[in-house]
């Protein structure tokens, strides 16, 4: 597969002979759409791993005749990989567009939350880049096979058979116990996506095909994951305490920023890009994540700090934050109390109350180690410090070394 990649990458997922043969028969240059179409055409079964229909739907697809290869640069050859992961999300060039409710029968209503096409593309590219920037044997990010936006026609062509006709092995969420924003069965997912694409001009589905990270404790693994994701595996098995696992993830977050130039703002336990046990997922909407606290990263919307636009966006957010802040700690406290008191009792949720706890320039100055003076001068100093510290985050922790072999 490396010849189809933009990034120079050693190891990772590759195509088996059958896939290579079929791709070579195509009369034109191979695109990501071709790869997606081909792999989806061979799907014999699938599982819905995650269905937060407003944001993303994640499937595990199992191929029939095709095989992928996994090379983790170790001496031991790995068995062929028969499954891959599909992530579907909506994109629109104008994310302020008001989209319609999918169906009246869902309460709360389901309205797609599209992201910008560039952001969706960045997600796939970030994963590819991270894969190529870490030693193959320690990469903790799923390798990306292909990613592309799909038109409504392409979506129908590729997913109709899978979602509407090949659903012998799926699990679905009972409507009574479903989480907010979850559509449910594969047929509903298909109808939901197609309906939205037909209703809204410019709305597209973005699909990312990636390595399936799957664990079955006590069984052989079909890919490299046994070693690379050992901490995650042990954590899920219950043989590792949370603290050890958290330290490992903290190390990965640090490296992603320093070496991968990516800062994620969405690293939490409900981001499911891999599952632990077939029987415990998705049987009840309210408990679907309880048994598999996963911290496999979701890079949707992450800040790619090799992109000027993302750096500008962070700087703007910071300026906005500073401008909305009170000057001193005392002022912030008084103002926050006033805002909380003014809230209607029924709207006093924990999150809403904590959001009213405003920050102040004085505390920001202390955090960044900047001299606190008047507001205008302090904001200027803070912005300079923020940019400088962001640059420090991006500085690589390690130096390249000469290797003697």
């Amino acid at each position, binding site marked *: 597969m490396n010849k189809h990649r933009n990034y120079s990458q050693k190891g990772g997922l590759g195509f088996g002979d059958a896939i290579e043969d079929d791709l070579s028969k195509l009369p034109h240059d191979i695109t990501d759409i071709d790869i997606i179409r081909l792999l989806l055409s061979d799907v014999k079964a699938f599982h819905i791993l995650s269905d937060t229909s407003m944001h993303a739907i994640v499937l595990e697809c199992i191929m029939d005749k095709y095989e992928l290869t996994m090379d983790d640069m170790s001496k031991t050859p790995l068995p062929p990989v028969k499954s891959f992961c599909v992530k579907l999300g909506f994109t629109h060039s104008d994310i302020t567009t008001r989209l319609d409710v999918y169906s009246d029968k869902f309460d709360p209503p389901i309205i797609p939350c599209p992201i910008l096409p560039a952001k969706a593309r960045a997600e796939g590219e970030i994963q590819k880049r991270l894969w190529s920037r870490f030693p193959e044997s320690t990469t903790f990010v799923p390798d990306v096979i292909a990613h592309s936006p799909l038109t409504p026609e392409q979506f129908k062509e590729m997913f109709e058979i899978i979602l509407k006709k090949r659903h012998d092995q799926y699990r679905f969420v009972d409507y009574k116990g479903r989480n907010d924003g979850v559509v449910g069965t594969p047929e509903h997912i298909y109808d939901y996506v197609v309906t939205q694409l037909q209703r809204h001009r410019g709305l597209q589905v973005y699909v990312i095909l990636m390595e399936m990270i799957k664990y079955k404790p006590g069984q052989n693994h079909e890919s490299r994951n046994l070693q690379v994701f050992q901490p995650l595996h042990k954590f899920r098995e219950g043989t590792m305490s949370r603290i050890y696992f*958290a330290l490992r993830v903290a190390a990965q977050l640090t490296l992603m920023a320093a070496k991968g130039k990516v800062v994620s703002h969405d690293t939490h336990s409900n981001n499911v890009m891999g599952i632990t046990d077939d029987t415990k997922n998705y049987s009840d909407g309210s408990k679907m994540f309880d048994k598999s606290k996963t911290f496999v990263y979701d890079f949707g919307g992450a800040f790619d700090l090799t992109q000027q636009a993302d750096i500008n966006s962070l700087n703007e957010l910071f300026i906005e934050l500073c401008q909305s802040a009170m000057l001193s700690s005392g002022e912030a406290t008084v103002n926050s109390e006033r805002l909380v008191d003014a809230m209607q009792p029924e709207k006093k949720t924990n999150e809403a109350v904590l959001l009213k706890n405003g920050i102040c320039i004085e505390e920001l100055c202390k955090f960044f180690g900047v001299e606190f003076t008047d507001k205008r001068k302090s904001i200027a100093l803070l912005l300079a410090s923020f940019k400088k510290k962001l640059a420090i985050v991006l500085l690589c922790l390690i130096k390249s070394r000469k290797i003697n072999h």
Partner: protein
Amino acid sequence: MFDKKSKNKPLDVHRRLMMIAFIDFMYNRTQEHPYCQCGEILKEVYPEQKGSKTIFRVNITSLFKDFRSFLTAFNLLELPVGNLLKEVVIDIEDILSPDERITGQLPENSIPNLSLVHTLGSKRSRGDYSAHTDTSRTKKTHISDTGQQSSAAFHRQETPSLFSRIVSWRPWSWKRGGTRKIKGIRNRKSRRNGKILH
């Protein structure tokens, strides 16, 4: 595997984690979400910062649940007491195996411009960065840039708690193909750095 110029690896890691948490808070606040999403992880790295606190009658179990509490408890220049950053450093070194060939450093022309490039590229800013990691200032890891030092923190550094001793022991192997003995690793690191890591 850290940059040789880096004299205080835990502080390097601390700064990065703090900026990650800050960005997390900052962005999520714009999405009407008060928490730091990676706080679930970071509260384990800074166990002393856990514990409940009440803000406007809302009970929070970690400082990563509230932006203001986070800002008042941490700062970028000094290490908070009772952190497990040395453990994170070991993990980082473990992830990046010794035979790694990829430098990880982007060519400077591939990094976007503006002040960021200036900061990354200029000698002044690099000097400034290394100044913060000067051993003379950060020898005991809790000495701030102003030279102030918490006696409690100093005591804690000198006599690590039972808790930190326990967590510094890792019974499993992260490494491929064999058991890694922490003691051996420590001795090797101690020889390399010329000092004892507790």
